[in-house]
């Protein structure tokens, strides 16, 4: 939960107000100067009306060098960031051929599969030579290889469901599946902080959408009772079906979902559950099986489990795991299965190898080691940051930790200063988060060593002092222990 102090809120609002005022002033002068140039094509409505791209032009472009930094190596725990410069105050950025070696705190590399791996990489290169980078075909036509069927069975076994279906892109998995499961006359109840792909899928389906307060099973129950009793809007006919959509780990908050309570509520009211495990599959849980394992929920209780391969498995693509009948139905009707090019075979092989390592089927215990390391790393890092006085969101065991910045000026300050000290962090502002709640998001990986983490803590602490984001009092260092030892 974000606890925004009043003074911070006031100063943030004031900063945004000032930026807005300056932006308007510059727009006014730009209009004046352009009056004499008249370069707009006559008769066509402008492609961006008035204030639509005001945020991009006047706020985002000023700090454009903090976003979209190109990298020149694999996103391992240390990587090369390309240096850029600008000749026209950040309107355009030019790349140089110099790179800086930085500590990577921004990639979703939870288990360290992003870099070359001794088990996965040789197999991937072999499959690239055998199957080529793309099947050039949709799944139903000629795009299903042996690898695809093998991976579907493996994913189903890993997650604990009877069957699974694969897609080439994680975003498409949500936005093309939800319209197949529910249509007009159905109700979708989704968490207020759900990802944009779920929102788009819900809109594309034509069903009515209601939102419940983030992670609040009590409010979910209220909404369910009200909706079932009221029925469809205006006609009051009973709903055809109700699907409740939640995520395993919310990527902007780092929080785990309260899954057991939500499943209990859904079972009581006969609603179907859809769990999006994009960030939690492979990263949490005793053996990497996701939030269900971590929170002790039986996978059979969740109707549909969705996940992506981009985060923990070092590949690309998404999957849906559910009962055999649902998967059969999806294979016949989902547009992403019938029209989209199938997943690239080397990417499929990468996921197969990664899952085998996690399960220990490659003959070593590297998987278990990685899982233990990521848990240790995340808990250590989070507790240290909290001790220093930063406002860190998220639950224990979650590898995503956002540090609140709030003020718009602190975003580029934090980002640039950290880069100068060779630590690369990702800062997130509007539109991915609410306007006042800008944050820096740290993603911990199993490939970070203890020295890496200590260096990161040191840099962040110094930069935090410089920029002024230690909103909570720091814990005093433990000096009393020396006194106790003397008494023993």
């Amino acid at each position, binding site marked *: 939960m974000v606890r925004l102090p009043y003074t911070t809120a006031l100063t943030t609002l004031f900063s945004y107000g000032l930026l807005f005022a300056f932006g308007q002033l510059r727009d006014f002068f730009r209009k004046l100067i352009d009056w004499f140039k008249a370069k707009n094509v006559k*008769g*066509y*409505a*402008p*492609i*961006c009306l008035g204030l639509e*791209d005001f945020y*991009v032009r006047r706020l985002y472009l000023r700090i454009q060098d903090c976003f979209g930094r190109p990298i020149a190596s694999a996103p391992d725990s240390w990587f090369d960031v390309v240096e850029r410069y600008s000749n026209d105050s950040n309107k355009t950025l030019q790349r140089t051929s110099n790179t800086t070696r930085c500590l990577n705190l921004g990639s*979703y590399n939870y288990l360290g599969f992003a870099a070359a791996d001794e088990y996965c990489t040789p197999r991937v290169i072999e499959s*690239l030579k055998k199957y080529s*980078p*793309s099947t*050039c075909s*949709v799944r*139903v036509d000629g795009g299903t290889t042996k690898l695809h069927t093998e991976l579907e069975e493996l994913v189903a076994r890993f997650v604990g469901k009877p069957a699974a279906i694969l897609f080439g*892109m*994680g*975003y498409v998995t949500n936005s*093309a599946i939800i*319209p*197949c*499961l529910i249509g007009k006359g159905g109700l979708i109840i989704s968490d207020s902080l759900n*990802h*944009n*792909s779920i929102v*788009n899928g819900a*809109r*594309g389906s034509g069903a009515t959408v209601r939102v419940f307060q983030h992670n609040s099973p009590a409010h979910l129950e209220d909404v*369910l*009772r*009200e909706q*079932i*009793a009221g029925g469809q809007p205006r006609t009051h006919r009973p709903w055809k*079906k*109700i699907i409740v959509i939640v995520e395993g780990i919310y990527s902007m908050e780092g929080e785990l979902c309260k899954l057991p309570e939500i499943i209990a509520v859904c079972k009581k*009211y*006969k609603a*179907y559950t859809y769990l999006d495990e994009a960030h939690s599959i492979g990263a949490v849980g005793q053996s990497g099986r996701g939030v269900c394992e971590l929170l002790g929920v039986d996978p059979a209780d969740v*109707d549909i489990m969705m996940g*992506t391969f*981009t985060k923990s498995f070092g*590949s*690309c693509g998404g999957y849906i795991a559910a009962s055999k*009948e*649902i998967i*059969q*139905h*999806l294979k*016949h*009707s*989902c*547009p992403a299965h*019938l*029209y*989209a*090019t199938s*997943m*690239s075979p080397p*990417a499929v092989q990468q996921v197969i190898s990664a899952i085998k390592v996690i399960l220990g089927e490659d003959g070593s215990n590297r998987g278990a080691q990685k899982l233990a390391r990521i848990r240790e790393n995340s808990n250590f890092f989070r507790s240290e940051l909290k001790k220093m006085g930063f406002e860190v969101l998220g639950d224990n065991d979650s590898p995503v930790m956002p540090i609140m910045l709030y003020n718009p000026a602190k975003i580029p300050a934090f980002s640039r200063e950290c880069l100068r000290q060779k630590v690369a962090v990702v800062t997130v502002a509007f539109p*991915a988060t609410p306007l006042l709640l800008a944050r820096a998001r740290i993603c911990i990986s199993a490939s970070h060593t203890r020295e890496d983490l200590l260096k990161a803590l040191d840099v962040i602490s110094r930069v935090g002092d410089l920029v002024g984001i230690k909103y909570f009092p720091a814990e005093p260092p433990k000096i009393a222990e020396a006194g106790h030892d003397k008494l023993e």
Partner: protein
Amino acid sequence: MDMALPVVNATAAALARVSAAFNAPFARAVVFGVHIDGHLVVEGLLITVIVFQLSRKSYKPPKKPLTEKEIDELCDEWEPEPLCPPIKEGGRIDTPMLESDEGVQWAVQNGLHLSRSTVVYFKHNDMASLASTLEKLTRGNKRAEKIRRYIVVESIYQNSGQIAPLDEIVKLKEKYRFRVILEESHSFGVLGKSGRGLAEHYGVPIEKIDIITAGMGNALATDGGFCTGSVRVVDHQRLSSAGYVFSASLPPYLATAAVSAVNYLEENPSVLTNLRSNIAALHKELSDTPGLEISSHILSPIVFLKLKKLTGSPATDLDLLETIAERVLKEDSVFIVTSKKSNLDRCRLPLGIRLFVSAGHTESDISMLSSSLKRVSASVLSDYL
């Protein structure tokens, strides 16, 4: 004028009587030393009546919210439908009714729906229908000039193999001041002298096309897609395009594969001549297939074969086509596919057999395919010829 005089007289008489009543001695009173005239009493009474009416509650039917017990009962009674409909035996994909209509692929339809704009469809690849729709939308409509307007077409339609006549579309676009969004998944790397797409094929300057999108899973043999346009258009999408902002980026090896594919195409334009000769050869050989006819454009690498005579039932049509495809695979090891339709797709174009021609095919491959297809379709469609 005649009528007015008696009316005026009558009114004057009435007024005189009323004022006399007011000025009668009993109408005057002195209350607390203040003279009260008669008309004040009437006014006081009127004000009292008004205040009385205002203070009364208006009639509303009493609201009775549901009690907790009633809500519990409703929740217990409610039964949801199953999450997926039961699978029919045979597992064939449902076919919709066949009518000729707009034919963009599902990806475009979904994008149009999610954009929350007003979408107007015109007849598939019919320029007269497009012109009349544009005329209808803009005639006399002053408001239309302020809103952003786009014509969305595909260069080679995935659902039918037709090619959009870009020169006519550009003429219409300039006349009615619309912008053009061109979906070039199947023509990028195929049409045009050097494979640059539909604009090169028709000799239209590329600046006239405002936005071009394409998937790279076809000619470029990788995954993913791209969108090009002016600097303003593309920069705007870096923060506003949902699929770009909220989604992971393409794996680097696929981007490298795409770059290599484009470089190869630039250095070896002979692949295009191979492709074109293969398409022409296929058209020639398949022109006399019993029971099937080619309904795609002569330059399209997607060769679309549909039934010459429809059986009247879409399910039987699909059965016949699938049987042809299965037998061709089993007997001659030739892999062809029928078109599949999702039930979410609102495109109503007819189904058929789709052949995707490649520059890598040789002449013997083409003749093997055509002889096999002719033989199998002659036997399968013997009752329907």
